Structures are given as C-alpha cells and as structure tokens.
C-alpha cells in the first residue's frame, strides 16, 4: 500500500518535472526568438556597417544608383512625421482621456472608449488607403491652401502641396496612435486615488481645477510614458506612412513636401535591392528601427510603471 503510494508519488513527480521542463522550454524558445531577431538584423547590417560606418547616420544622400546610402533624409522624415503625430495625438488623446476618466457620464464613457479602441484595431493598410484617396486630396485642395493662407509666412507652410507629404503622413499617424495615448493616459489617470481628488475639492477647487492642478500633475510621468509609447508606434509605422508620404528621400523644410521614412524605404525598396550593399543598408535601417524602438519602449514602460507603483505604495 505504502509502496504503491510512493510509486504514485514518484510517478507524479516525473510528470510534474516534465511539465515544468516543457513550459520552461517554451520560455527559452521565446528568448531564442528575440535573440535571433537581434542577431540576424546585426548580421545583415554588417556589410553596410563596414562600408559606411557611422557616416551612415548623417549622410544625406540615399542613392541606389551610385550605391551611396545615407540615412539622414530618412531619419529626418521619420522624426518630423512622428513629431507631428504625437503633437496632434498628444493634445487630442490626453484631453480625451481626461474626459473619459473623470467627466464623462458612464453611459457615454463606455461606448466612446470602445469606439476609440476600435480605431486601434484598424489595419495599417486601411488607414493608408483612406489617407491616400480621402485625406490627401482634401489636404491638397482645402487644408494645405488654407494653412498656407494663414501661416504661409512660416517656412514650414511654404511651397506647393501635392497632398502626399510630411503633414498628411503626420495626420494619418496621429489617427493611428491616438487610441494608444487615450487608453494608457486614461488608465494612468484612473490610478490616481480618489482621496487626492477629495482633498482638492474639499479645499474649494472645482472639478476641472482638481483635474488640472492635482490629478494630471500627479499622473504626469505616466501620461508622458503613454505619449512616448505612442511615439514608438509612430516611428515604426510602415504601410500607412509609405502610402501618403510621397517617398522622396530629400530633406525639405516645408511640411507639404514629400518625404521618406526609415520604415517605408525598407518596404518600398527591399525587393528591388540589386546589390549586396543596397540590401545591407536596408537591413541596417531595420536595425536602427529596432534599437530606437527598444529605447523608446523601454523608457515609456519605465515611466508608466513609476506611476502605477507610486499609487500602490500610497495605499
């Protein structure tokens, strides 16, 4: 009897040991995939790294014909379009989050949040399609001329508008990342304890003053983190951008000008890359995107976690 129970126990121990081992193996496979990602992208970039070195980052020529590749115009296009996107998405997204967190009646908050979150589910190519056939013509015929009329003295609004360009790409990107900003900001704001709001209001502040002078400042780090996270998404966005940015690797001051981003050049030219150095340069752009997104995402997560942890320790 005891022997049988012992036998059953050792048998079950083996089963459990196997179980843990299999699950552990899955985790290792996951880690291997991540390591593989970094390794393969680095390997593919080696030729380009050897040929151009760090000059790659500030050479302003991207020329497949002469085989001279410099990432500067692409870095420029990526940064400017993403900057436009986070300014727009930041303003609209943060205030939308404020409304949804504290001021919306419950019957309104749930459907509004749901609709905004659905925006995040729309595939990138669909945004690009809408951007190309609906937004770009509207920009070219109505919005850009209007901007030029009012702000034309500024160099960023000078020059002709083709509809596709930095500004249009920025707007499309903004639409794509606003759900990220809104959802995360709203969560962060909701984490700020109720008694902070009560303290403020019992001192005679209105609900709006409470929000702007107590709640938002307390959530500052997390909201910033949400914006940085959204920035990370904008920097790596490929398909929608490539459909509306004009695909011209040039640095121009005007926001109406066509431009090019790191991700879209890979998308457009990878299958056409004729030489090894061409291919390697494109992979190096991918490596650049990888590094940038890791830094940006890491920073964003740390910022947001600091608010969540702070709220928990205040309890």
């Amino acid at each position: 009897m005891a022997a049988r129970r012992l036998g059953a126990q050792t048998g079950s121990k083996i089963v459990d040991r196997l179980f843990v081992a299999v699950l552990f193996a899955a985790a290792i496979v996951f880690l291997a995939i991540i390591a593989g990602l970094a390794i393969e992208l680095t390997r593919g970039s080696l030729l380009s790294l050897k040929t151009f070195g760090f000059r790659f980052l500030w050479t302003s020529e991207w020329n497949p014909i002469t085989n001279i590749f410099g990432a500067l115009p692409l870095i420029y296009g990526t940064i400017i379009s993403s900057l436009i996107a986070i300014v727009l998405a930041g303003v609209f997204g943060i205030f939308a989050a404020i409304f949804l967190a504290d001021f919306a009646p419950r019957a309104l908050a749930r459907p509004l949040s749901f609709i905004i979150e659905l925006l995040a589910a729309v595939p990138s190519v669909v945004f690009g399609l809408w951007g190309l056939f609906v937004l770009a013509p509207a920009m070219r015929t109505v919005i850009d001329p209007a901007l030029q009329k009012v702000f034309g003295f500024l160099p960023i609004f000078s020059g002709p508008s083709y509809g596709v360009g930095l500004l249009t790409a920025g707007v499309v990107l903004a639409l794509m990342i606003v759900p990220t900003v809104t959802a995360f900001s709203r969560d962060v704001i909701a984490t700020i304890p109720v008694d902070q709001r009560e303290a403020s209001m019992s001192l005679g502040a209105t609900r709006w003053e409470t929000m702007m002078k107590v709640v938002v400042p307390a959530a500052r780090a997390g909201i910033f983190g949400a914006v940085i996270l959204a920035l990370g998404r904008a920097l790596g966005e490929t398909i929608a951008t490539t459909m509306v940015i004009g695909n011209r690797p040039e640095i121009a001051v005007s926001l109406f000008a066509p431009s090019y981003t790191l991700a879209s050049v890979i998308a457009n030219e990878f299958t056409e890359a004729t030489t090894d150095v061409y291919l390697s340069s494109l992979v190096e752009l991918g490596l650049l995107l990888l590094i940038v997104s890791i830094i940006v995402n890491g920073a964003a997560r740390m910022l947001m976690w600091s608010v969540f942890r702070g709220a928990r320790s205040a309890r």
Partner: protein
Amino acid sequence: MSFLVQAAEREHQSKMDVGDLSVYYGRFAAVKDASLAIPANCVTALIGPSGCGKTTFIRALNRMHDFTPGARVEGRVILDGTNIYAPGVNPVLLRHKIGMVFQRPNPFPKSIFDNVAYGPRIHGAHDRASLEALVERSLRRAALWDEVKDRLDRSAMDLSGGQQQRLCIARVLAVQPEVILMDEPASALDPIATSRIEDLIASLKKEYTVVIVTHSMQQAARMSDFTAFFLLGELVESGTTAAIFTHPTDKRTEDYITGRFG
C-alpha cells in the same frame, strides 16, 4: 435631542444647525432624519459602530455628496442662517468656510509649501510674500512649523504619517475656515501621533468649530464637548459629552457606551 438644543442655547451659540437630514445612495438611506445643533467653538464628536452613517452625515455638512453619483441629500444644513443646500449657494465658497480632514492623510505629491498654499492659490492668492506668511501661520497653528520650516520645498510624501496629517490640517487652516470637519483623523496613526493630533484639536476649538467622527469612545470622551450617537443611519441621541457618557437616556446609547456591541 432637545436637551442638546437647550444646553446650546444656554451656553453656546449654534454654528451649524442640521434639520431632518437624510442621505440616500440610490434607494438605500444611509442617514435618516438626523437633526443636530453644532455649537460654535466647541468640539462635537460623532460616535457609533462602523456603518452607522456618521461619515455619511459629516460629509453632508460640506456638500461632499455633490461628487457622489447617485447620492441624494434631503433636509437642511444651516450655516450662519443660510441653508447650504439652497439653490444659488456657492459650493466653492462654502468649502472655504467648512474644511475637511480625512481619515487617511492625503497630501498632494507636491512640496510642503505647495500643499499648504494650494487652497489660497485656488481662490486667487498669488502674492508670494503674503502666501509665505499664510503658510507659516497655518503650519504653526497645526503644530508642524518647527519640524518643516527648513524644508518647505521638499516633497510632502517624505513626511511621517502623523506629520502628513498635521500638514493636511495646516492645508485646511490656510483657507481660513470657520468650521473644521474631521473624519477619524487619527485612526490611521500611531498612539504618539494620535495624542499630538488630539492636543492640536483641543487647541483649535478656540478659533474654530470642530466636528469630529471617531470610532473610539475614549477619544470622544477625552476631546469633545458635545457628542452625538449614531446607529444604523439614525441619530439616536446627542448631548454634552459628560451627559451622554454618564447618563445616556436611550438604551441603545447605553449599550454602545458600555461595550455591549460595536
């Protein structure tokens, strides 16, 4: 109940008069038909077992239920002759006059100075010199000045629990209220911090009217001049603290005081 009114009329003016106050959360009546006169420059304690409605009652005194969706207040709360629930009453100015200190210290994650200056700044004070004077006065009055005068720019979150609660009191004092409501202000603190708060409250009543919710009968007996006993949403009995604790007229009060429940 009339006992209290007579006593108040004899010795103290009534600062606030609560008449037939009921507070409903949805259909549940957390407080039913409570009437109480709160004498000026005295400490009035609200006692009773948990869930009896004393916190709900005190929050009705500065219209904190305005912010609770689904909460409904009926009855009158008269401050200086005006019903604070009358239409047209400015709730913001109301909270100027009636301040509140909460059970758990809730300083803002800002500097000590910015915490105390928050109220005055909201109401429009911006002159640095007068703000500094006001902050010092409030911190002194809250018995915290000596401990923090050299680090007003440091975060309030670095203070101990007892210090944070005194900071919250200073914060309330800075808006120069007439009535101070306290919801179990010392229940989250250790005994030493608690006794400091109690001493502070005793000194505050010279200039302010204090209403304090407490779950400790000993605390009520030590600190308050008048006491009101709540049970299941009903104001059972009120009177001078001495009378309530030595000759309670209602059996329920007597049972609570003698520890038969609660």
